[in-house]
């Protein structure tokens, strides 16, 4: 009987945690759009959105209302089932990735331990890669199912790009796993108690930052949606909230990669004075602002440059980094 009650209490706590995290994540993803538009505008000596509410703060709400009331069209000749499900795949995989990100020390509520992470998987890092690979299906299927040449080209480019950059993304984190002796995100944060890993692994950090920008299809790597060649790439044919889901998925991706970058390299929720959740948010915001800065600076890569950078530069560098870390590790022990 007591076991049963404990189980139910744990279940309710999990549900509450899920709701809070989902709400906060979607809220910040929405306002990340606002931050990006404002910050990018300032970089380009413009104002950005400033009509809806003070400083344009109501702009995300207005956008959501607009997308919800817009007509949701399915083009003639589209593969209906895949067309309808593709945006959900992109958004869901992006949101699921956040479930292994720890955002604080364990909490004690009424004598029960509540870990501040949705699930402390012992293979958390692998879970992130699995979800990030599944996101490719949303892009490729969405592009293919829209029965449009722009969508198809965008989808193919997206698939090629995301599969290529998955490799340096994974390889760049092998040294981190070697240093933390664990795939679990909670243990990786625990391993950075003294120093964040960026001090030991600046090369891995750079490789990870570049590949995560390519994974979230940000501007120097936005070939799948290159608007001046492919109209809008894989989401050309989407409208209304289905387009909104692609859009949301992209910004949740930025949040998630910001969170993973801060967990793996910047010490996660650790920091002086402020509560852990705030520190994590500050670090995510810093990563996001850096990504926007990159967007404001660099032009889009050519397709062959993109592939050459991934296969001929980042992967060899990541492999060398693994070798070096292994050698240093052997010397120390």
């Amino acid at each position, binding site marked *: 009987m007591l076991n049963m009650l404990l189980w139910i209490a744990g279940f309710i706590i999990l549900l509450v945690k899920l709701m809070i995290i989902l709400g906060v994540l979607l809220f910040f993803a929405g306002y990340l759009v606002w931050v990006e538009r404002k910050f990018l505008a*300032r*970089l380009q*000596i*413009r*104002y950005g959105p400033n009509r809806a509410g003070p400083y344009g703060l109501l702009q995300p709400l207005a956008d959501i209302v607009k997308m919800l009331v817009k007509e949701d069209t399915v083009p003639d000749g589209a593969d209906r089932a895949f067309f309808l499900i593709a945006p959900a795949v992109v958004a869901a995989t992006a949101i699921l990735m956040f479930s292994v990100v720890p955002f604080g020390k364990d909490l004690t509520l009424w004598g029960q331990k509540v870990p501040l992470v949705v699930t402390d998987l012992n293979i958390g890092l692998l879970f992130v890669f699995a979800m990030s690979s599944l996101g490719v299906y949303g892009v490729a299927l969405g592009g293919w199912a829209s029965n449009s040449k722009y969508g198809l080209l965008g989808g193919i480019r997206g698939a090629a790009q995301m599969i290529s950059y998955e490799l340096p993304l994974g390889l760049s984190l092998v040294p981190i796993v070697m240093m933390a002796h664990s795939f679990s995100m909670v243990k990786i944060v625990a391993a950075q108690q003294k120093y964040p890993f960026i001090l030991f692994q600046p090369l891995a950090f750079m490789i990870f930052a570049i590949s995560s920008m390519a994974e979230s299809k940000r501007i120097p790597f936005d070939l799948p949606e290159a608007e001046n060649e492919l109209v809008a790439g894989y989401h050309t044919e989407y409208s209304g909230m289905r387009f909104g889901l692609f859009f949301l998925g992209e910004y949740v991706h930025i949040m998630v990669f910001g969170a993973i970058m801060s967990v793996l390299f910047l010490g996660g929720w650790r920091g002086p004075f402020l509560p852990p959740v705030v520190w994590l948010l500050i670090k995510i915001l810093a990563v996001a602002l850096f990504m926007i*800065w990159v967007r404001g600076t*660099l032009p889009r890569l050519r397709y062959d440059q993109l592939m050459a950078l991934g296969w001929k530069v980042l992967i060899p560098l990541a492999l060398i980094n693994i070798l070096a870390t292994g050698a240093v590790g052997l010397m120390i022990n």
Partner: protein
Amino acid sequence: MESAWEALKALLSGFWTVFIHLFRKPITEQYPEYKRVLPERARGRIILTRDPDGEERCVSCFLCAAVCPVNCISMEGAERPDGRRYAAWFRINFARCILCGFCEEACPTSALQLTTDFEFSKTDILSFVYEKEDLLVNHQGKDKEYNFYKYCGVATNYGDKGEHIGEEKPVDVKSNMP
């Protein structure tokens, strides 16, 4: 190695240039609050002006309708008992008008003129069809002095043939025989 260093320097200088732009004042003009002063000859909504004596200038010559590249001007000519021509009705479809100003250049009597007003957007497209009473104004527009009937060779209340400015008396051709 040299080229890699050069590339890195170029990359960093690009990032720095973008960063210092963060602290510059935006150059955007906040339109409804700030309206820039338009040039005198900016082309906007079309009006029909009157001559200094308060009469309609338009003589319904159809030159504006003929030159209009989008065929948005139409009218019907008529004549008053005293000999002056006028437009029985005059219609401009601003939904089609491209504000090119050809009609103003073609107009021989300075009747049709473009104003600098460009803020007349509406949601109902039929309300863009302006009739004569919408177009006619009570001033001379840009051309303050000109009065066509003081120069033309038509007998009106400004005088008979040969009595206008710069005109000579008509010659009886039958008296010109050798």
